[in-house]
């Protein structure tokens, strides 16, 4: 118990260190001393530095590297928290945030925007809207029938996800193959090259708020993962809390697509790794997943920037890292699956 509680501050320190180290990583080499001097100058007006050097550093750190790092942290935390809460809620450790179709819906929205509207803002709005619409359809399908709600929601998610995946194919088919189609395809591979502060602020605030809310509600997740009837007999208003958690998870996942396109596998494997580290208790698992997810995605972004001369889309890296890792943890994780 005690070691578990100590792990959260520890992870926070690791996250801060990861952010610091990542600021030094990039095509233009910067040492920790350069950055240290720069921050001393900016924050405490200490030391001195050439003005051109200052501008360069300011441009590199604040305009190029920092937004990417913050975006990676937000996306990693959001997907991991959404994944962890879905895994508990749907009583299944193999579930990922895309279960109810949010990622399929959001990708369709993004593609739709890229083909039929010129503005990036419209693309982002459509992404967000269709992410929610897909989940709304899944929930509505589940509500239409009486029976095992969890099962019906999963089926609703499969239907809704399949529908938007097909619609996405329609859009890809009618898209102009010279420039629209490549744009769509690249966007669906996920990447942080288009991140700007405006998007970051607009998406980041709701994401942070919903992550905080899920952490505050995480006390109910253990009981929810024992099944509906048991949770209800423990005095929990299951339907209400589940709907609220689905809403929050959808909000944060849809916004990750708005920021960076499709980033797969994070929401599935990070909660697993975290569970191996801190145990299954969701009160600790959810905040720890947020931190580990953030650290993981910052690291992945560093790899995707630095590995080759050309940047690799981050979604490709998360899949390539995620799949073999999943195979590795599968054996260990089986123990706890019953």
């Amino acid at each position: 118990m005690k070691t578990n509680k100590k792990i959260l501050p520890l992870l926070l320190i690791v996250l801060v260190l990861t952010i610091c180290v990542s600021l030094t990583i990039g095509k233009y080499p910067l040492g920790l001393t350069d950055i240290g001097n720069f921050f001393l100058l900016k924050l405490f007006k200490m030391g001195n530095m050439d003005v051109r050097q200052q501008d360069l550093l300011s441009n590199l750190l604040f305009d190029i590297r920092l937004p990417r790092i913050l975006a990676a942290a937000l996306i990693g935390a959001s997907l991991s928290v959404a994944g962890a809460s879905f895994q508990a809620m749907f009583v299944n450790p193999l579930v990922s945030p895309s279960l109810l179709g949010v990622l399929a819906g959001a990708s369709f929205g993004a593609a739709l925007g890229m083909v039929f509207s010129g503005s990036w803002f419209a693309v982002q709005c459509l992404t967000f809207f269709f992410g929610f619409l897909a989940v709304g359809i899944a929930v509505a399908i589940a509500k239409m029938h009486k029976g095992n709600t969890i099962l019906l929601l999963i089926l609703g998610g499969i239907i809704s996800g399949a529908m938007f995946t097909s619609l996405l194919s329609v859009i890809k088919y009618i898209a102009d193959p010279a420039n629209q189609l490549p744009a769509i395809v690249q966007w669906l591979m996920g990447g942080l090259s288009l991140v700007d502060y405006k998007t970051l602020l607009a998406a980041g605030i709701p994401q942070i708020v919903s992550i905080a809310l899920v952490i505050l509600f995480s006390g109910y997740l253990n009981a929810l993962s024992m099944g509906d009837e048991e949770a209800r007999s423990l005095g929990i208003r299951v339907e209400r809390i589940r709907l609220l958690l689905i809403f929050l998870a959808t909000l944060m996942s849809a916004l990750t697509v708005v920021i960076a396109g499709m980033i797969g596998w994070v929401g599935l494997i990070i909660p697993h790794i975290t569970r191996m580290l801190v145990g299954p208790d969701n009160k600790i698992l959810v905040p720890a997943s947020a931190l580990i997810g953030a650290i993981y995605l910052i690291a992945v972004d560093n790899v995707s920037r630095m590995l080759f001369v050309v940047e690799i889309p981050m979604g490709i890296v998360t899949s390539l890292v995620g799949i073999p890792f999943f195979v590795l943890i599968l054996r260990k994780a089986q123990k706890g699956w019953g």
Partner: protein
Amino acid sequence: MGLKPLIKIEGISFGYTQKTVLADIDLSITKGEVVAVLGPNGCGKSTLIKIMLGLLRPDAGRVLLNGENIRKLDTRYLAQKIAYVPQTHKSSFPYSVLDVVLMGRIPHKTFFFRYSNKDMKIAQGALERLSVSHLTSRAYTEISGGERQLTLIARALAQGATTFIMDEPAGGLDYGNQLKLLDQIVKLSREGYTFIKATHSPEHALWIAHRAVLIKKGTIIADGPCDDVITTENLFHLYNARVNVLKFNDGPFNVCVPQTICGCMDALHDRKESIFENNQKVMQCQ
């Protein structure tokens, strides 16, 4: 019975589409009683239990707890009074036994909550009461079925409820664990806890229940003290099984002996003898 009923079920009917599961059930339960609900598979006893817990809404009738309709009570308040002890199951996640028992504190919590030291003490106290505190930090998925059932009872105790509704509590447990579980039920009922348990075992009912309720095809066919209700005729009517319910020599309760096996008793006895003779040497060696 002059006592005011703790739980009163009035005219409960319930049906899934087309099929009637329960028809006009009346039942009242007094504080401190151990009531066994018996009936064949699909007779509606699980449905009745779920209605008593407020998990299912009956088509007609109502369940009163101390005179108040449970559907009008706050779910958290209801959980403080009535606890559900489900059939032993495995969780998908390896929570520690303490984490599972702590879930029982949720009805005492509001909105965003963290467990306090008091909750910890109550949970640990509940495990101690059932003499399973050695399990505290074990994974719930790795302990035995009997230990899991005791953990779920500890959770019900931590809930602060005094009425426990159990679905097949002894199902899937080995003989020793079944007896341990029944011991605990008797112990707690002496302290004033009320138990309503659906069970497949007339023996268990005869051993520990004050009262048996027999349900067939959604209606109560008998309700009363076990020795009066669990009879040869009733068991045949209920299960279509020929069982002799016999007075046990000076024992406190009756026993069930299947007639089919009784009928061949002599043959069985002879066979056992011969087997025994043949194996005697081997058995002695062991």
